[in-house]
């Protein structure tokens, strides 16, 4: 036995060589005895020895067989040793054909890498449970207008629900407001979440540090000056310093005591809000001012349907009592859909399915390569079977080979995923929730391991089946038949079919993306710079703001290169909006039902010009508009058509949905903006002059020409500081970024699926090329004969290509059928294109057929370059 310092590997190696040495010595003895006998018959010693050796035959082979026969004797030859032995053998086999090994590894790493990347993504975004206790019991409650548009909730309605709805164990409201944080250096414009004290109860979360708000700090109309920091703000801005508890923050001139840190994953619901303070819901505020997001936890045992029914009943009653929200109703939504979103979830599954398709194609390619190799190794297999290697042993050998490839491909694939995940995250960061939490972590790696296992079996199966379908003798009958051919053809045509699936999905998403991005948003995002300006009530009352902001904008207009400046309370694609009701005075509105819900914004003169929106009728606001006398408004085209059809809207009177029923005079009409959701019909909209409604948080839009935008951006801050020292200016960026963010989700899906489709097409091309090349090589002698008998090249190439394409038929048709079925699942992700879009389908099918033709034509043509005489000599091939 070997010494204790030897590794098991050394032990098996020396055991093996000891067996070999012993068998060799035995053979030597045999040959020597035979030589002795021959010498005794009178043959000279040297000749006798040679003859004895010759008679003995193939020493190498006999030795291998004898050693193999001895295997049960080697007690140390455990299953593990056998696998090591197989692995060594597989490695030698693979190294002997580096091109084959590299192709297979690259292919598999692409497939496995794509799968692992998407698994990590789908896990973080879709599968990972929400970080709340019993998230199924958490619902979002919203209002529905008589037209079934979804609205937020007023503070008054919220307090009624809080008191009356018994299906809710707890309920909380949130409103996000801008604020100015006085921090050392310069003031920062931040979002402040005004929340109910029971927010964390509803979600079943605990503060990370300190405490949450108390009921007495959340008294109606009298919120206490206490604050909680978000987990991210605490980590990023305060270095996770626990002594921040008890310190004070100065926001909009008020001092808030920090009492706690919000839990880590609260941002899945609240977004990046850094600071929270109690809301103190005030029931005396206008009940038709809808701005609260409301979430609630269902009482134990209550279903969402029961709660929904109760809430609707409560709302019907309080609508009547307060004579507000007449005709409105309520709706509960599971929080999961609110956070993750239906299209995101659907998109995730589509990408996962596509990655699986790509993986299958990679497996098909490698399986094909292995089968082709198994065919060329027929002789080796036949000999090994003839000398007693069992079929099970050869099968295991083949699986070890495919397993080695799968493991290698898996390692490379995981490396690929490590690099791909951050790229994909950056791509999706703008709009895909929770995508930043994707990581190549142990569960993802476990999925990768399972993938490797599946790949081993799937890739190894075909060559093994090929082996089973064959007796010991038949492979020696060379060239008669090739039982693997049919299987390989099936694999390649399946691959071509799968390409159709990927390409069709990509084509549809592409068409839809093009349709979406070519939607006219109604404004010109190019040549703009935008930034937010926050003038809270505590520092500037509305009269001061009404003067100060126009002054700032005027000053900016003086900057070189700037052509127009304006301001709006709602930045394009910020997701926000202001809503109210309006009626046409002609219809003598006297009931709530006469009023139409609309979006509205307060804008400065020059806003339309700065956005690149043309005034279609009437005029723009002027500086004096909104300072007294008539109340001028500018309306969008949709509203004009809704109210007065084709008639001229200028000079008409609208009734504003406030208790006084203010009369508004239409002085202008503009084209509609699609700046909430690009793919939807633009809402009806009313613009009112800023001087009349001087909102605190505005977005200024600066239009420039020619000049370098960074120079203009650099000029903005000093100019604002000159006029309003201490006024915080938010980040300055082009509105193009807002538009780009608006299509982030479809672009995300398109880029990933497109990458898969291109890879898939390449795999199919390689697979098809390889199969045809192999076929043609086997047929070289036949082709040689036909060429020497006078057949012309063209007709032979045609024959090869036609036969190949013909055999593609079933795969292509199956692929089209699968893709057709799968494309209907895409419908939720499509915009402006039907799943059965004829253009997409014809282009995809044409592309696949063209690719197939190229992939068969090239090897067929190169076969023609062979000299007929040489072709005939390769018969033995």
């Amino acid at each position: 036995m070997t010494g204790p310092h030897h590794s098991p590997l050394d032990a098996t190696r020396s055991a093996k060589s000891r067996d070999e040495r012993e068998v060799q010595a035995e053979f030597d003895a045999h040959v020597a005895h035979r030589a002795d006998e021959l010498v005794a018959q009178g043959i000279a010693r040297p000749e006798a020895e040679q003859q004895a050796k010759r008679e003995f035959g193939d020493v190498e082979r006999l030795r291998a067989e004898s050693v193999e026969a001895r295997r049960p004797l080697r007690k140390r030859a455990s299953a593990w040793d056998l696998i090591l032995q197989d692995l060594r053998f597989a490695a030698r086999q693979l190294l002997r054909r580096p091109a084959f090994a590299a192709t297979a590894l690259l292919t598999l790493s692409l497939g496995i890498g794509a799968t692992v990347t998407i698994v990590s993504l789908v896990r973080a975004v879709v599968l990972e449970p929400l970080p709340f206790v019993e998230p199924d019991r958490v619902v979002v409650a919203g209002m529905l207008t008589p037209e079934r548009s979804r609205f937020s909730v007023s503070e008054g309605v919220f307090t009624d629900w809080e008191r009356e709805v018994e299906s809710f164990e707890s309920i909380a409201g949130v409103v996000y407001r801008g604020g100015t944080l006085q921090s050392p250096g310069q003031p920062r414009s931040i979002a402040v979440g005004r929340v109910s004290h029971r927010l964390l109860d509803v979600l079943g979360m605990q503060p990370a540090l300190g405490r949450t708000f108390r009921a007495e700090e959340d008294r109606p109309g009298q919120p206490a000056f206490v604050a909680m920091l978000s987990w991210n703000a605490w980590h990023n801005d305060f270095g996770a310093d626990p002594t921040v508890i008890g310190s004070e923050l100065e926001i909009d001139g008020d001092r808030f005591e920090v009492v706690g840190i919000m839990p880590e994953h609260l941002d899945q619901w609240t977004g990046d809000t850094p600071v929270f303070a109690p809301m103190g819901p005030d029931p005396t505020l206008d009940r038709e001012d809808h701005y609260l997001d409301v979430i609630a936890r269902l009482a134990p045992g209550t279903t969402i349907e029961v709660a929904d029914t109760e809430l609707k009943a409560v709302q019907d009653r309080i609508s009547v009592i307060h004579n507000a929200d007449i005709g409105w109703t309520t709706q509960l939504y599971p929080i999961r859909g609110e956070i993750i979103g239906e299209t995101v979830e659907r998109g995730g599954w589509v990408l996962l399915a596509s990655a699986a398709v790509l993986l299958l194609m990679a497996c098909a390619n490698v399986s094909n390569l292995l089968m082709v190799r198994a065919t060329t190794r027929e002789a080796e297999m036949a000999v090994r079977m003839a000398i007693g290697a069992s079929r099970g042993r050869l099968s295991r050998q083949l699986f070890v080979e495919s397993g080695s490839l799968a493991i290698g491909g898996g390692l490379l694939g995981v490396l690929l995923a490590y690099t791909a995940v951050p790229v994909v995250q950056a791509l999706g960061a703008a709009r895909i929730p929770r995508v930043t939490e994707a990581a190549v972590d142990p569960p993802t790696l476990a999925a990768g391991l399972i993938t490797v296992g599946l790949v081993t079996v799937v890739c190894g199966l075909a060559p093994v089946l090929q082996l089973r379908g064959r007796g010991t003798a038949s492979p020696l009958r060379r060239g008669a038949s090739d039982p693997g051919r049919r299987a390989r053809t099936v694999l390649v045509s399946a691959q071509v079919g799968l390409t159709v699936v990927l390409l069709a999905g990509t084509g549809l998403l592409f068409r839809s993306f093009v349709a979406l991005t070519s939607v006219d948003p109604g404004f010109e995002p190019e040549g703009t710079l935008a930034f937010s300006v926050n003038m809270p009530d505590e520092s500037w009352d509305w009269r001061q703001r009404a003067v100060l902001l126009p002054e700032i904008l005027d000053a900016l207009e003086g900057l070189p290169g700037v052509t127009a400046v304006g301001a709006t309370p709602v930045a394009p694609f910020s997701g926000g909006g202001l809503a109210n009701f309006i009626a046409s005075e002609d219809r003598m509105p006297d009931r709530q039902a006469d009023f139409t819900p609309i979006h509205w914004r307060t804008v400065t003169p020059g806003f339309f010009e700065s956005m690149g929106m043309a005034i279609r009728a009437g005029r723009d606001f002027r500086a004096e508009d909104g300072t007294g006398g008539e109340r001028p408004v500018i309306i969008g085209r949709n509203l004009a058509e809704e109210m007065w059809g084709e008639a001229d809207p200028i000079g008409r009177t609208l009734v504003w949905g406030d208790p006084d029923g203010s009369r508004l005079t239409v002085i202008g009409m503009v084209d509609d903006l699609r700046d909430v959701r690009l793919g939807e019909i633009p809402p009806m909209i009313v613009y009112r002059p800023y001087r009349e409604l001087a909102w605190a948080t505005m977005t200024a839009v600066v239009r420039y020409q020619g000049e370098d935008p960074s120079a203009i951006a650099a000029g903005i801050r000093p100019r604002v500081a000159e006029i309003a020292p201490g006024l915080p200016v938010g980040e300055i960026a082009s509105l193009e970024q807002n538009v780009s963010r608006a299509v982030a989700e479809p672009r995300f899906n398109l880029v990933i699926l497109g990458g898969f489709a291109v890879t898939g097409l390449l795999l199919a091309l390689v697979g098809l090329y390889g199969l045809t090349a192999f076929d043609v090589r086997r047929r070289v002698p036949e082709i040689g004969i036909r060429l020497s008998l006078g057949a012309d090249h063209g007709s032979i190439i045609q024959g090869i290509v036609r036969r190949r394409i013909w055999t593609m038929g079933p795969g292509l048709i199956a692929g089209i059928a699968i893709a057709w079925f799968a494309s209907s699942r895409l419908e939720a992700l499509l915009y402006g294109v039907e799943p059965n879009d004829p253009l997409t389908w014809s282009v995809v099918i044409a592309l696949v057929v063209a690719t197939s033709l190229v992939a068969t034509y090239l090897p067929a043509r190169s076969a023609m370059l062979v000299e007929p005489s040489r072709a005939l000599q390769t018969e033995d091939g």
Partner: protein
Amino acid sequence: MTRLDLLQGTLDLLILRSLSGGKRHGYQIARAIKSSSKDVLHVEEGALYPALHRIEAKGWIEASWGLSENNRRAKFYALTTSGREALESQAKTWDEYVRAVSRVMTQMPGDAS
């Protein structure tokens, strides 16, 4: 003179039988089978040695190195107890088989000649 190729099971039986008189090395076994079959049965080295090692792995024979009649180092094989039992039962089976076959060959009513 006819030479017959041996079936695997038959070869095992012959090897066991050739060792029933005492231990022998590989070349002696081949010679013994050849001569006692009057040169009809010819054992290929290609079959003999793998068979020897297979039988050894089964535990029917034991190997040891020693000096041969030519004063050469050779590997000698000897029957183990289980090898003797295997030889007995296989010889019996073989006997019955041969008798059965020859009964059929001699007693079957001959059809057209």
